[in-house]
C-alpha cells in the first residue's frame, strides 16, 4: 500500500469523534456475530456525496459490522508471523472461518497493548526533545494519537514490520507481538481514514506508456502497426503496473523518439490508398483551397488525437502550421502529413490530461475524461467512436450506460473453431495479467536453463505466456467467477503446451480452451506453467520463491525482507548421499531468525514441487520421490497442489481483496492510498455477494468514487 494517503491526510483534521472507536478494541469486538448485518447494505463509496451525518452513520455501521474487527485468521494463517499488509476481513471471511474466530481474535492487540509495546520497545530512544529521528512517543496513549498523525504511524508500521525497528542491539519483541502491533496500527489508520469518507485522487496527468502509445496510434490511424517498438520501455510503480503515473518519466530522448515514431507511422499509413483516404479526408480542388482542405482534415483528426473536441483556436493553430509548410513547396500531402505528425508529438496527444477541478471539493471527471479512463483501463487504448459519442451526449456517468459499456468493452468473440478472435480486451488482459502475475518476465528476466529446457521453443513460450491471458480474458468476456483463478476445470493451451501438459485434443498454434479432468493436475493459476516458471530459478525449482509468490501475488501479504546480516546458509552437498531440496531447505526452518517467515513461505512452495521448472508434472526430482506435503503455521496440513488450492479457496476473501487492490491500482493508474483501502473493502464485499463475477469487479471499480471523481486543487 502506498503511503500517499498518509501524506495527504496528515494535516487534515479527523472529522469524526474518534473515542467511540478507540474505547473498545477494534480487534476483539465480542458482538460481531450477533450484530452482523449483511455488508451489502453498506456502501462506503459514495460517502463524500452524502451529508456528513449519513457518513457518520455509515461509518458507525462499518465499524460494528464490516470493519476489520473480524477475523484475522485469513491473513494470519499464511502471513501471521510475517505480518499482513491488508488484513481487513469481511463478513464472508467470518463465515468461512467461523470456528477460528475466537482464536484469531485473541491474537489481536488493544490500544492498551499497543501502548505497552511502545513503552517496552520504543520509548527508550523515542522520548523527549532529543528523541531519535525527532519521533517522540512519550505521549502516545490511544488510537486517536495514531489517527492524528497517520503519516508518522505509517512509517512506524513499516519499520517495525520490516524488522528495522527496534534496532538489533536492543530488546526485541517476539515476531508474534511485532505483527500484532503492526496490524493494530494499520487497522487503526484504516478506521480513521474510512470514517472520514472516501476521497478520490487528483486529476490525472501522465504520458501514455509504451503499450498504450502503440495501441493508440494503431486505433487513431486504423492500421495494424506497432508504432511504439522503438520507444524506451517503462518501469512500474504503485501496485506494480507500468501505467502508474508516478513512474512514467520523460527523459530527453523521448521527444526525438516520438517524432520518429509519428513520422514512420503516418508515412506507413499514407502508403495505402484506402488508409490514406480515411486519414486525409479532404484534398484541395476547385471549390476547396488547400487551407480549407487542411482545416477539414484537422477538424476530424485533432479531436480523435486529443480524445476530446478540439477548439476553434486549436484547429486554427494547426492550420497555420500547415500553411507555413505548404508555402514552402506547395505540396498538399507533404504539408498535411507534416501537420498530423506535429499533432502526434503534441503533449495533447501523448499525455492523458485532466482539467484540474475548479473547487476544492471532489468533482466528477468530465465526460471525455471518463471516456479515456474507461478506454485506457479496459483497452489500453483511445476511446472509440461510441464512447466519444456517449461523452458528447453527456451519458457516461449514467450507471446503466456504464454497465452496457463495460460489457461491450470486455467482449471477446469465439469463432466456429472455438478460437478467441482478436479483441481489444486482450490488451487489458495482457497488461494486467502479465504484470500482476509477473509472467511478463518469461523470455525476459526469466529464461530456463538449457539443462531443464530441451524442448523449450518459441511456440511453447508463447503457449505458456498466453495461457493466463486467454484464461483471464475468458473470465472477463464470459463473466465467470474469479474463483476460477484459484481452481478451474478448464484452461487455454496451444499445440505445444497441450503436449507439455499431456492434455489430449486437437490444437494448433493459437491457444484454445480445453476442459480439464482431475488427472490433468491443472486448473487455476497454480497449475499454469508460466506462473510456475517465473517463480523458479532457471535451473531448478525454488519452494521459497514459489511460496513467496503465493503470499505476495495471490494473497497480497509479502513477507518482510530477510533481516540484515543473515548468516550464510552452508549448503554441504555430499555427492555420495543425495539430499532432497526439502532436506536442504529444512535448515531455513531450524534457524529461528529464518524460521519466522520461511515457515509460512516454504511449505506453500513444497506443495507445488510436483511441477518442474517449466511446470511439467513430475513425481521424482533428483532421484528422490517428491514429497508435496506441508504444514502451515496455522497448523493446517495438506498434500499436493489440489489440497493446497483447497486451502487457498478457504482464503478466497484475502485473495479477492488482493486482486481488487491490484485491479483498482491498474484502473486508476497510480499507487493506492490508505483511503483507497476503504474502496477495496467495499468492492470486495460486493464481489462476494455476486458470486465473484469478473464483470462485477470491473463494474464496481468503474462506478467507484476514485474512478469517477477527481480531487479539487
Amino acid at each position, binding site marked *: 500500500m502506498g503511503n500517499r494517503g498518509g501524506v495527504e491526510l496528515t494535516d487534515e483534521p479527523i472529522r469524526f469523534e474518534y473515542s467511540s472507536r478507540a474505547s473498545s478494541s477494534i480487534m476483539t469486538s465480542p458482538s460481531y456475530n450477533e450484530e452482523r448485518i449483511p455488508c451489502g447494505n453498506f456502501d462506503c463509496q459514495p460517502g463524500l456525496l452524502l451529508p456528513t451525518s449519513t457518513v457518520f452513520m455509515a461509518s458507525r455501521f462499518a465499524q460494528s459490522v464490516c470493519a476489520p474487527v473480524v477475523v484475522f485468521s485469513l491473513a494470519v494463517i499464511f502471513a501471521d508471523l510475517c505480518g499482513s499488509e491488508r488484513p481487513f476481513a469481511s463478513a464472508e471471511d467470518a463465515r468461512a472461518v467461523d470456528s477460528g474466530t475466537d482464536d484469531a481474535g485473541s491474537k489481536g492487540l488493544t490500544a492498551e497493548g499497543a501502548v505497552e509495546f511502545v513503552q517496552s520497545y520504543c520509548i527508550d530512544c523515542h522520548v523527549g526533545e532529543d528523541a531519535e529521528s525527532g519521533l517522540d512517543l512519550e505521549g502516545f496513549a490511544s488510537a486517536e494519537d495514531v489517527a492524528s498523525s497517520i503519516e508518522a504511524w505509517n512509517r512506524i508500521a513499516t519499520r517495525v514490520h520490516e524488522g528495522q525497528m527496534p534496532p538489533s542491539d536492543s530488546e526485541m519483541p517476539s515476531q508474534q507481538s511485532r505483527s500484532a502491533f503492526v496490524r493494530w496500527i494499520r487497522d487503526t489508520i484504516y478506521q480513521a481514514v474510512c470514517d472520514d469518507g472516501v476521497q478520490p485522487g487528483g486529476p490525472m496527468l501522465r504520458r501514455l506508456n509504451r503499450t498504450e502509445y502503440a495501441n493508440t496510434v494503431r486505433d487513431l490511424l486504423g492500421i495494424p502497426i506497432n508504432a511504439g517498438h522503438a520507444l524506451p520501455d517503462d518501469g512500474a510503480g504503485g501496485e506494480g503496473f507500468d501505467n502508474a503515473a508516478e513512474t512514467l518519466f520523460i527523459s530527453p530522448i523521448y*521527444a526525438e523518439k516520438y517524432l520518429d515514431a509519428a513520422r514512420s507511422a503516418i508515412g506507413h499509413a499514407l502508403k495505402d490508398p484506402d488508409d490514406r483516404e480515411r486519414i486525409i479526408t479532404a484534398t484541395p480542388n476547385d471549390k476547396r483551397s488547400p487551407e480549407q482542405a487542411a482545416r477539414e482534415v484537422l477538424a476530424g483528426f485533432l479531436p480523435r488525437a486529443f480524445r476530446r473536441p478540439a477548439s476553434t483556436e486549436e484547429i486554427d493553430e494547426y492550420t497555420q502550421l500547415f500553411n507555413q509548410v505548404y508555402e514552402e513547396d506547395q505540396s498538399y500531402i507533404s504539408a498535411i502529413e507534416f501537420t498530423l505528425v506535429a499533432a502526434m508529438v503534441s503533449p495533447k496527444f501523448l499525455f492523458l490530461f485532466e482539467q484540474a477541478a475548479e473547487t476544492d471539493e471532489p468533482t466528477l471527471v468530465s465526460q471525455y475524461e471518463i471516456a479515456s479512463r474507461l478506454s485506457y483501463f479496459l483497452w489500453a487504448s483511445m476511446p472509440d467512436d461510441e464512447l466519444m459519442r456517449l461523452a458528447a451526449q453527456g451519458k457516461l456517468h449514467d450507471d446503466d450506460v456504464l454497465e452496457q459499456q463495460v460489457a461491450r468493452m470486455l467482449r471477446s468473440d469465439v469463432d466456429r473453431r472455438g478460437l478467441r478472435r482478436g479483441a481489444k480486451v486482450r490488451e487489458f488482459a495482457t497488461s494486467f495479467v502479465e504484470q500482476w502475475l509477473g509472467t511478463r518476465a518469461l523470455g525476459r528476466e526469466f529464461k530456463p536453463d538449457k539443462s531443464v529446457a530441451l524442448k523449450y521453443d518459441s511456440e511453447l513460450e508463447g503457449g505458456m505466456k498466453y495461457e493466463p491471458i486467454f484464461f483471464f480474458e475468458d473470465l472477463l468476456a464470459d463473466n465467470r467467477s474469479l474463483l476460477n483463478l484459484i481452481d478451474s476445470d478448464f484452461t487455454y493451451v496451444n499445440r505445444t503446451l497441450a503436449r507439455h501438459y499431456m492434455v489430449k485434443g486437437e490444437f494448433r498454434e493459437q491457444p484454445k480452451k480445453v476442459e480439464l479432468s482431475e488427472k490433468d493436475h491443472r486448473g487455476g493459476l497454480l497449475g499454469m506453467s508460466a506462473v510456475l516458471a517465473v517463480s523458479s530459478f532457471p535451473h531448478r525449482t525454488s519452494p521459497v520463491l514459489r511460496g513467496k509468490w503465493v503470499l505476495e501475488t495471490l494473497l497480497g501479504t509479502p513477507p518482510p525482507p530477510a533481516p540484515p546480516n543473515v548468516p*550464510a546458509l552452508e549448503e554441504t552437498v555430499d555427492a555420495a548421499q543425495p539430499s532432497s531440496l526439502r532436506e536442504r531447505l529444512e535448515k531455513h526452518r531450524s534457524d529461528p531468525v529464518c524460521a519466522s517467515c520461511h515457515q509460512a513461505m516454504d511449505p506453500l512452495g513444497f506443495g507445488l514441487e510436483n511441477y518442474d521448472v517449466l511446470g511439467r508434472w513430475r513425481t521424482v526430482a533428483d532421484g528422490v520421490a517428491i514429497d508435496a506435503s506441508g504444514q502451515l503455521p496455522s497448523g493446517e496440513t495438506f498434500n499436493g497442489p489440489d489440497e493446497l488450492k483447497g486451502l487457498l479457496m478457504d482464503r478466497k476473501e484475502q485473495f479477492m481483496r488482493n486482486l481488487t487492490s491490484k485491479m483498482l491500482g491498474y484502473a486508476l493508474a497510480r499507487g493506492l492510498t490508505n483511503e483507497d483501502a476503504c474502496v477495496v473493502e467495499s468492492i470486495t464485499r460486493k464481489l462476494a455477494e455476486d458470486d465473484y463475477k469478473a464483470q462485477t469487479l470491473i463494474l464496481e471499480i468503474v462506478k467507484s468514487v476514485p474512478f469517477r471523481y477527481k480531487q479539487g486543487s
Partner: protein
Amino acid sequence: MNVYLDDETNRQMPLSRRTLLRGAGAALALPWLEAMMPGKVSAAESEGKAPEDSPLRMAALFVPNGVRQDMWTPEKTGRDFDLSPTLEPLADVKDQLLVLTKLWNQASNFGDGHYVKCSGFLTCTTINKSLGIDLNCNGRSMDQVAADYAGKLTPLPSLELGIDPVTTGVDTNVGYTRVYGSHIAWSGPTSPLARELNPHLVFDRLFRAGNPNKGAAQRDRLLLDRVLEDADQLKHRLGAADRQRMEEYLQSVRSVEKRLQNQDAGGATQWQPLVKLDRQSRPPEQRPDAYVEQVRLMLDMIALAFQTDTTRVCTFMFGNAVSGRNFSFLDGVSGGHHDTSHHQNNEDKLRQYQLINRWHVEQYAYLLEKLRSMKEREGTVLDNSMILYGSGLRDGNSHNPHNLPILLGGSGGGRIATGQHLSFGRDTPLANLYAAMLNAFGTGHERFADSTGILPGVLS
C-alpha cells in the same frame, strides 16, 4: 569476414573462438564493424599523451550482483601488481588500467541489498524507499555532471545504454519500485534517464545526429514550436507537481530544437564528426536472445559514439540489479546470475560466480581494446577516455558496499595515472574517485556527493 574472428582479434581476445561461435551463432557476420576499424595500433604505439585538442570521454559500465571476492583483488599493489584470476582478461591493457581497492559507497549502505546500490552507484546518495510516489535518488549521477560540462559540445549530451528492459513490477518484499534497479543515470533527483536497448537504434541516433538533414531542420523547428506552445498551454492549467512532469517534456523537445539550431547555425559553432559514420555499417536487427552479441554491439556503439565524437559521456548496464540472467551459455555455468551470486560459500557456486565475473571483465577488456584500436591524432581514443567499470556491491552473498570492485580504464588524456593497483584505507569514499574523474574531465569539480576530497594517486 567477421572481425571478431580475425586472427589478430583472436589473439588479443581472451574469449575462445569456440565460445564466440556458440554464443554468436556462426551465421551472424558483422562486416559493418570492419568499416569502423581503422588500422590497429599496438600497445606501444598507443602510449604517450594525446594532444590537448582531442576530446575527453567518460563512460561508466555497471555490473549487477557483485563479484567473487577472493578472485577479484590483485595481491600486490602499486605498478608492479599481478592481475587476479578474474582480471586476467585485461592483461593486454594492463598499462591503461587502474585497479581500485577498498572504496565504498556509504550512502548505499542501508535500504536493501540491490536497488539502493544500483541507483546510488553513480550518485553516491541514498535513494528514497518508494514504490513510485516519492521516487527520488536525492542527487544526480556523476556522468550527468560530466554531461553538463561536455554535453553542449556534441550532438548528444550523453548516451544511456542497457540490455535488459526495466524489470517488471515493483518489489513489495523490500518496498522499492524496480525502476531503481534499472537505472544508474539520473539527470535530477526524480529523473532517471531512459536507456536505449537496441544497438541498431543507437546506431540510428548516432547516424542522424552526425548527418542532419538541413532542409528538414527548418521545418522541424516549426513543428517543435507548435509542440512547445501546446505544452505551454497545458502547463498553465496544471498544479505545481504536474507542471514538473510537463516541464520534463518541454525540456525534451527543447533539446531536439537546440540540436536543430546548432545544425543550422553553421560556422564556428558547428559540430563536426571526428570520423564519419557509414550508413552501411548499421548493426543488424538482433535476435532477442542473443545476449552475447547484444553486449558486444552495445560496446561497439560506445566506441563509435566516442570515436565520432557524437557524445562524450555514456553509461551502460550489463544487467539490471538482481538480474537473474541465465549464464548457461558459458561453459561450466548452469544458474542464473543473482542466484549464483548468493553462493553461500558453496564451492561449485563460487566457481560459477567467478566465471560470470570473468566474462564481464572480458567484455570490458574488449571495449578498452577496441577504443585503443581507434587511432586519433597522436594517440588512441582510449588514451582520451576514462572508462569506469564496477558493481554497487562487493559480494553477492552479503550485499555490502564496502570494498567495491572498481576499475578505471584509459588514461583520460594523460590525466589518469594508469597501470597501477591502488589500495586505500578502509572505507574510502567512492565519491572521491568520481571527484577525481570529474576533475580530470575538466569540470573543475573538487567534490562530488559525499566525497571528502580527490582520491589520491589517481591523477597524474
